[in-house]
């Protein structure tokens, strides 16, 4: 039987991310090298889900998250495009940071 506190724990989005990270840490030992990148970018999208629930996300990040969810499966059939997609996400994140910085100084 699940106690209320146990139920709360396993439904907690932070705990879900924690379990994902621990399982991925073990999985990456045996999996293809690029799967490490897949798990990290997947974790980034999951983290943005949590940020949304907590009201800490903006439209730029929502777009980025949707792009990650749409494109991360590229790894299954086109590794080169998957790496290009990671480059693109990195650049977009930098643009978001740059924009935030300029908004603050203006």
């Amino acid at each position, binding site marked *: 039987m699940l106690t209320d506190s146990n139920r709360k724990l*396993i439904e907690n989005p932070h705990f879900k991310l924690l379990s994902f990270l*621990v*399982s991925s840490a073990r999985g990456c030992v045996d999996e293809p090298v690029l799967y490490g990148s897949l798990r990290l970018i997947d974790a980034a999208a999951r983290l943005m889900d949590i940020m949304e629930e907590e009201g800490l996300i903006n439209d730029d990040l929502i777009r980025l998250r949707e792009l990650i969810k749409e494109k991360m*499966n590229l790894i299954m059939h086109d590794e080169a495009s998957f790496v290009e997609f990671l480059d693109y996400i990195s650049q977009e994140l930098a643009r978001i940071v740059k924009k935030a910085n300029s908004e603050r100084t203006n």
Partner: protein
Amino acid sequence: MTSQLPDRAKIVLEVIKGRRSIRDFHDGEIPDEHLRLILEAGIWAPSGSNLQPWEFVLVKDRNLLEKIKLFSPGLFGRPATIIIICINRKISERAGKIGELMSLMDISMAAENIMLMAYALGIGSCPVASFNKIAVKELLDLPAHVEPALIITLGYPKELPKPPKRRSLEEVVHVDRF
């Protein structure tokens, strides 16, 4: 019977080529009779020395499924149910040293049967090897000699992905010599 063969072959090829790995599912329960057919397809797979070292754990309980998802980075979407294909080591070791490899081949063939039958019933599936075996073993109370090897997700597909690239026959088939 021979005259029926081309039609049968056509259907088999359509099912084999039509199956996709589905990672996004609609909500919707799979009827028990369909689950039974899917599992029946699994047990009719070929098996080395006819040992049939497989065990199938069908997870329908949503709460348990969510717990397994916590430890399964390779499991995407919200499948209606999952089948965890396990290897019974007490059975596979009867095949001697080759038993370990042979049991993997056996469960792989069972998995393909399962996924093809699911597709034939309009149900999407995806084989998932990326899950934490120790955690899943604990969650399912599996005995020490039963090892979870592969998860098959099952559910109604939101969309059918395009066919992935295949290495051509010319590239992979070698007649008489490599």
